[in-house]
């Protein structure tokens, strides 16, 4: 039976597009016949700005890519620059970096799960989640004075050493969070309607997911055991004990569960980081003085000059950000500014699969599937 098609423009201003994504939908009644994502409504030209700023000036802009989890963005760029310039980082600084990144992973997953549930119509989870997120943000504030956009990780270390009283508060947070995750599971996972909405929706096989360039929890939800922290280790991850959370089903529910498990793993990592952190304090910028940079910085320094010139060359460096593989391709021509900065953002590549993922599903499933892919439009559009 033929029926009239309905063309719907969903977004860019729509409550469940996580910002400014837009979907052009061809609908047959309630079913989606074709979904065409239109992106670029938050395209801010970050890559061009990267060419116009010095290496250090560009770090704040990386904060604003994936603004829910900014530390990994900082780190990914700084890691690329460090590899390019061959800079050694003191061990304590690496521990602090991992600490911030794992905290940020928890924050990211809280927001991700919360907004997924909000899109499904249950607003309570995001309210609860933001309560715990606020505690984490207070920790970030102690570290660097900012809540969301940090500019904290610098080449050669971090901007400041962790302040006094940070570790006890962190321990408190970890202890609290353990209980809260159980709460979340009871609230969400014990709900039959949630299972009805999530299971067997937006199924993608591991092979297809790889073909689409999926990474991160979305890929691990499809049964591909892959985590850059484990299989292309960087920083201090080789010394840490954690497991990669994988689910076989490849549906929305699997992706949700992977995020839940990763939060627990991150807590586990945080505890190890706190226990094993080297005691030697980092020398801060003020103590180091403002002498100009000559050669590589000393091993216990967080100091790094404002202007420096790495040797000419190019590097592609990737890390496991909360949303997936975040890569920076930095080309240096031996001047104070990068010649080209290319950002490989996880959200952008994960969003590619949306049209095939939601074909034939209902409009409510589009929202559920989109929510489990967990994109941030700043990261997609750059």
């Amino acid at each position, binding site marked *: 039976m033929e029926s009239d098609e309905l063309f719907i423009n969903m977004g860019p201003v729509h*409550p*469940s597009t996580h910002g400014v994504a837009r979907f052009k939908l061809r609908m047959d009644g309630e079913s989606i016949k074709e979904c065409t994502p239109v992106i670029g409504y938050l395209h801010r030209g970050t890559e061009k700005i990267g060419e116009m700023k010095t290496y250090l000036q560009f770090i704040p802009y990386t904060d604003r890519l994936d603004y829910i989890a900014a530390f990994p963005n900082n780190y990914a760029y700084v890691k690329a620059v460090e590899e390019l310039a061959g800079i050694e980082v003191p061990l304590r600084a690496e521990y602090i970096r991992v600490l911030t990144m794992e905290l940020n992973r928890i924050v990211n997953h809280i927001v991700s799960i919360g907004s997924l549930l909000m899109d499904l*119509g249950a607003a309570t989870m995001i309210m609860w989640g933001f309560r715990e997120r606020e505690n984490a943000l207070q920790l970030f504030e102690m570290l660097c004075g900012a809540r969301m956009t940090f500019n904290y990780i610098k080449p050669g270390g971090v901007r400041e050493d962790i302040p006094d009283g940070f570790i006890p508060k962190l321990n408190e947070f970890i202890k609290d969070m353990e209980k809260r995750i159980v709460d979340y599971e009871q609230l969400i996972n014990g*709900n039959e*309607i949630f299972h*009805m*909405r999530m299971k067997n929706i937006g199924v993608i096989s591991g092979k297809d997911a790889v073909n689409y360039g999926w990474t991160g929890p979305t890929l691990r939800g499809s049964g591909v055991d892959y985590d850059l922290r484990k299989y292309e280790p960087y920083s201090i991850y080789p010394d840490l004990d954690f497991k990669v959370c994988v689910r076989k089903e490849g549906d929305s529910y699997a992706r949700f569960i992977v995020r839940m498990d990763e939060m627990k793993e991150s807590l586990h990592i945080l505890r190890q980081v706190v226990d094993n952190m080297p005691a030697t304090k980092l020398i801060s910028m003020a103590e180091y003085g403002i002498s100009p940079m000559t050669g590589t910085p000393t091993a216990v320094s967080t100091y790094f000059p404002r202007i420096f010139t790495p040797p000419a060359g190019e590097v592609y460096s990737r890390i496991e950000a909360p949303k997936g593989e975040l890569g920076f391709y930095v080309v240096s021509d031996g001047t104070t500014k990068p010649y080209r900065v290319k950002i490989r953002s996880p959200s952008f590549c994960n969003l590619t699969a949306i049209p095939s993922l939601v074909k034939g599903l*209902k*409009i*409510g499933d589009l929202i559920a599937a989109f929510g489990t892919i967990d994109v941030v439009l700043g990261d997609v559009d750059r």
Partner: protein
Amino acid sequence: MLFLAMWTGDIMFENTYELIVFILNFIGIYDPIYNVFEMFGLEYLLRIIIVLAEIAALFVFILLTVMFLTWMERKVVAMVQARYGPMVTGPRGLLQPVMDGVKLIGKEDIIPAKADRWVFTLAPFLIFIPALLVFIPLPFGESLIISDLNVGLLYIIAISAISPIAILMAGWASNNKYSLMGAIRAVAQDISYTIPLALAAISVVLLTGSLSTVDIVTAQSGTWFGFIPKWFIFLQPLGFILFLIASIAEMGRIPFDFQESESELVAGFFTEYSGMKFAMFFLAEYAHLFSVSAIVVTLFLGGWSVPFLSSIPATFAVLIPIISLAAFVIKTYVIIFFAMWLRDTVPRMRIDQLLNIGWKIMIPLALLNLLATAILLTAGVF
């Protein structure tokens, strides 16, 4: 003295009209007024005036309740979500609904350029008035009923069936695709859930043998074995659950809020409405919530009847009218609180899942329940 006689059951009134006439008589002013009207041959005018006064009182009561409900909803949501809710406007934010109302009166009233002006304007009235009309055969307390229709229950179900038409009008006239989809969803949902609703109600009618709401309530007074109240919830547990689910679906609240479903359809069928017309939808929604909860209470929870009232000493019998009204309101608010609680806890279902459950589970179960009731009734168990 007379009041005592009245409430102990010596004098019963069919409805509030008779109650008012009785009170006027008791004070001694009914006859003079009646004579004045009789002089001009306008006895019917007095009758109309009294009925209008009743309706005005009801209207004011409903509006106040609805305003209170919006405040309560926001407070309940806030408490579940670890927040405060409205606090600044008035004590504990109690003036918030008043402020919202005044503000909405002062808003610009937009009619979209391509909308069907008449239908667009008519729809909010058509949804608001039936929401009030439903209250006419509802007993708020002993003798506190506008009109005890002998087809009361049928009337309620029939009047409730007007709202899908109004929603369809609103959705169609708005000339907005989201509105239209919301309207179509609402109609599909209402049609499929009115059937189990009516079937569950018929099971109750089988027990009482009457469609009159007063008869249904009086049939539920008293106790079994002295401690179980004779409420139909104990005779019809399945019927109660079916009726509750179906009425929440008919109200269009989470988990069944497809007509609105903010994250999918922006604001559903009233996307294009602004100002006072939007306020009418808003008020109608809460009036509906109150009326549906009241019907649930009337049918299954004994209405205004209080189980152990017969054991009250005769000297305190004067308290019975207050107790009966209070009992009714408290029971209704329990159901309302349940609906609000549900809204904060569960996610929304999907439209096809909803219809599946409606047609494939609810209706067969309701029919089964009806059959079982009929058999047990014939066997003489009830």
